[in-house]
């Protein structure tokens, strides 16, 4: 019998399945701190099994009409509703051309069966340091749209993640979408090293916009510290072009300047070595594109 053994059952909770955003906000007002929002559930269910979370109420947002939207209107960028799954994003091909860095990051998340359930917003809201979507979203300058009783607000992803498993979201608020500005003509890519485990030991997301004289680069590292880290030094090194020389310089700077942590997965020294490897790898690939 599986019932009753540790790590296999879930704590008691009441399940709610609202279909409109108003209903979600009403449920959050009523249950607030005692409630957890559920997208695909792959994170929440795992956390509940480990008793890291024991909400009295689970609010499933999968069938909320407003949150299922995936808006790719030309000129306005891409808006990804909170109920949109990773499979939808990958199979629909919406990311492939203009948001390559996110496409590459998501296509390596877990496996196809998990991606069928997992949502991008759920992945982001976990704010686990080794999750791959935040660096890619920060490289794309994405922001998070939030709805609450006092109205709506928007925060950049870089500010939304406040620390490990800590996000800028009140108990009666809900993330409605992740919005990515138009990046036509930009060159972007993602690289990570897992060493065969399920977790990234180091990841890098790069975007270079081809705005003539206004060339800008955004380089974000993940999985090496408690939060994604942007590197102004590496960005400066590749701003004027990705060449064999600038790649070498960028890789050295990444290894030198980015602060890494020692933990059970890897030592800081090993992570610093990996930064050099993945920076070289991602930039060489972008150079040949």
């Amino acid at each position, binding site marked *: *019998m*599986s*019932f009753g053994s540790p*790590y*296999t*059952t*879930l*704590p*008691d*909770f*009441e*399940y709610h*399945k609202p279909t409109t955003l108003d209903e979600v906000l009403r449920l959050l007002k009523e249950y607030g701190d005692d409630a957890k929002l559920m997208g695909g*559930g*792959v994170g929440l*269910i*795992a956390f*509940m*099994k480990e008793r890291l979370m024991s909400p009295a109420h*689970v609010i*499933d947002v*999968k069938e909320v009409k407003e949150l299922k939207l995936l808006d790719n209107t030309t000129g306005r960028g891409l808006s990804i509703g909170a109920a949109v799954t990773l*499979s939808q994003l990958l199979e629909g091909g919406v990311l492939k051309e203009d948001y390559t860095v996110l496409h590459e990051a998501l296509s390596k998340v*877990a*496996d*196809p*069966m*998990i991606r*069928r*359930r997992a949502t991008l917003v759920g992945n982001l809201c976990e704010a686990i340091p080794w999750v791959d979507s935040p660096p890619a979203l920060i490289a794309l300058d994405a922001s998070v749209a939030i709805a609450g009783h006092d109205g709506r607000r928007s925060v950049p992803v870089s500010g939304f993640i406040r620390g490990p498993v800590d996000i800028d979201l009140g108990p009666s608020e809900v993330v409605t979408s992740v919005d990515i500005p138009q990046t036509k003509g930009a060159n972007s890519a993602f690289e990570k090293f897992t060493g065969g485990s*399920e977790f990234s030991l180091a990841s890098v997301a790069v975007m270079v916009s081809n705005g003539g004289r206004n060339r800008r680069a955004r380089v974000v590292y993940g999985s090496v510290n408690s939060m994604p880290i942007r590197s102004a030094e590496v960005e400066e090194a590749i701003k004027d072009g990705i060449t064999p020389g600038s790649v070498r310089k960028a890789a050295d700077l990444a290894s030198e300047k980015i602060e890494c942590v020692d933990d059970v997965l890897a030592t800081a020294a090993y992570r610093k070595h990996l930064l050099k490897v993945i920076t070289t790898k991602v930039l060489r690939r972008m150079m040949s594109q």
Partner: protein
Amino acid sequence: MREITVTVNGRARKRMIKDNELLLDFLRERLEVRSVKAACWRGECGLCTVMLEGHLVKSCLVLAVEADGREVRTVEGITNDGDLAPIQKAFVNHGAAQCGFCTPAWVLATHELLRVNPHPSDADLVEATSGLVCRCGTYNQIREAVAEVSAASKVRRQPKENLARA
């Protein structure tokens, strides 16, 4: 407790459940569908894989209540005439089951892969089954079984460039 109705392999099944019950437990314990295996309980091994509304999912990461009013298919439901599906025959031919514990999940996943993509490349197979584990290590035999079904398929093999566009 609440009552849910789930159509499992074409048959509507009505049961009382608790909100915190997993689809995995609902299938194994309440309906006694034992081909759905419970092993890691955390979405890593893939042995509890079922089809929910036509898509492969890991049932240890799905609430039973989420399947209310929906359709679930397990390995028992991949053929409706009681005969073995081509991939099942190929598993037998190639000895692609050793201890057999993971076999239902692998059969279901490879059956679905071949339905969507009758001529999967090695990379397609590895990607499609990357969420499944076989601790006996029958991966090579599974690869041979998939190749056999692919070779026998009447669907014409498409040139590579067409596949890339599809």
